[in-house]
């Protein structure tokens, strides 16, 4: 039995088990194992994204399920080259996701523009349009690398003072888009 920080203690016994810990930790335990990602890709990296969801890499076993709509998704994976024309769509998808929401930049293109850096039509990195939590190098990253990125995100989620945030005791992660500025249809 060991406890590190806010992490709950989980014990399995003959009569069933129990988990003991701060509520934050328990909530985070649930959250980190149900990070649903948006099934969305903009270029070749999306093929590896699909592969990661397939039976061999089997992202489902960590709780990474794909969702077809941003309204049910927690994670936006920027899988592929982002053109300026696509930028507004990506931003719109991100805004349609409920907080807390996370972004993973998958592959060189989403990190920096990749091999299309010199192009007039390519955004030089996804973090120029949405805030990014995890960067995964590679062109494309293998499914293993994407899984590692998702697991890094789990670690981040695990450490968040989630309860205090939703109670308003701590500010939510710096919101780059002040309320009322956009989407006031």
């Amino acid at each position, binding site marked *: 039995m060991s406890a590190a920080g806010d992490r709950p203690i989980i014990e399995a016994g003959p009569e069933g088990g129990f988990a003991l810990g701060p509520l934050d930790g328990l909530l985070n335990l649930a959250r980190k194992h149900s990070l649903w990602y948006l099934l969305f890709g903009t270029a070749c990296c999306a093929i590896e994204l699909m592969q990661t969801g397939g039976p061999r890499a089997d992202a489902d076993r960590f709780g990474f399920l794909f969702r077809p709509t941003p309204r049910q998704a927690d994670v936006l994976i920027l899988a592929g080259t982002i053109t300026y*024309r696509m930028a507004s769509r990506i931003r719109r998808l991100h805004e349609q996701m409920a907080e807390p929401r996370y972004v993973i930049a998958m592959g060189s293109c989403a990190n920096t523009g990749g091999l299309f*850096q010199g192009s007039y039509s390519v955004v030089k990195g996804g973090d120029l349009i949405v805030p990014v939590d995890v960067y995964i190098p590679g062109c494309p990253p293998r499914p293993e690398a994407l899984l590692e990125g998702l697991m890094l995100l789990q670690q981040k989620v695990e450490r968040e003072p989630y309860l205090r945030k939703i109670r308003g005791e701590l500010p939510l992660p710096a919101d780059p888009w002040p309320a009322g500025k956009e989407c006031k249809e």
Partner: protein
Amino acid sequence: MSPAEELATCQAALAGALGEAPTVGGAAPDPAGAAAPAGDAWLEVPAARWREACRAARDLPELGFDFLRSLAGVDRPEAGRIDVVAHLFSYRHRRALVLRTSLERAAPELDSVAQVWPAADWHERELWDLLGVRLRGHPDLRRLLLPEDWPGHPLRKDWQEPAEYRGIPTRREARATAGELAKQTYLAPRGLGRDPAGGQPDGGGGA
């Protein structure tokens, strides 16, 4: 038939249809057909007769170019011209042809051939998008690859990349700060992809 003979046949047939012979340009094919030419030779058509020539190339039985392989442009600022090049192929005769015309760079305008080969539709939109060639009579001349409010036509050799597009920096010097992200205006408050001045929708059908 050697490439030289094929080109001569096409030239003669087009001359019959247009009343003037198109000139042969580029590496003339070796008459003996021995050495491979350095590149495709082409037939140069006056811009004013472009659609006529294309229609003839498709319809004359001895030409029968039923397939448009590609339609592209070349910017030649030193000559003050923009060239438009069409690569054609005839399935009937198993033969290829390059048609070319030259436009004034200051105000390039050309008749659309989307009615001749439907495949030309998107090629011509690309011509407009990247080189700024206006296609007269095109059914739907919008940009193909870039957003509608994009400044200029980037395949022009003198095009300068602006420092930012709707607040997104076009160079990667540093990660955008939260404040910089907040200043970006490319997602207009109302409706996806409409520019704030109330211009055209950028073809995205909304989300």
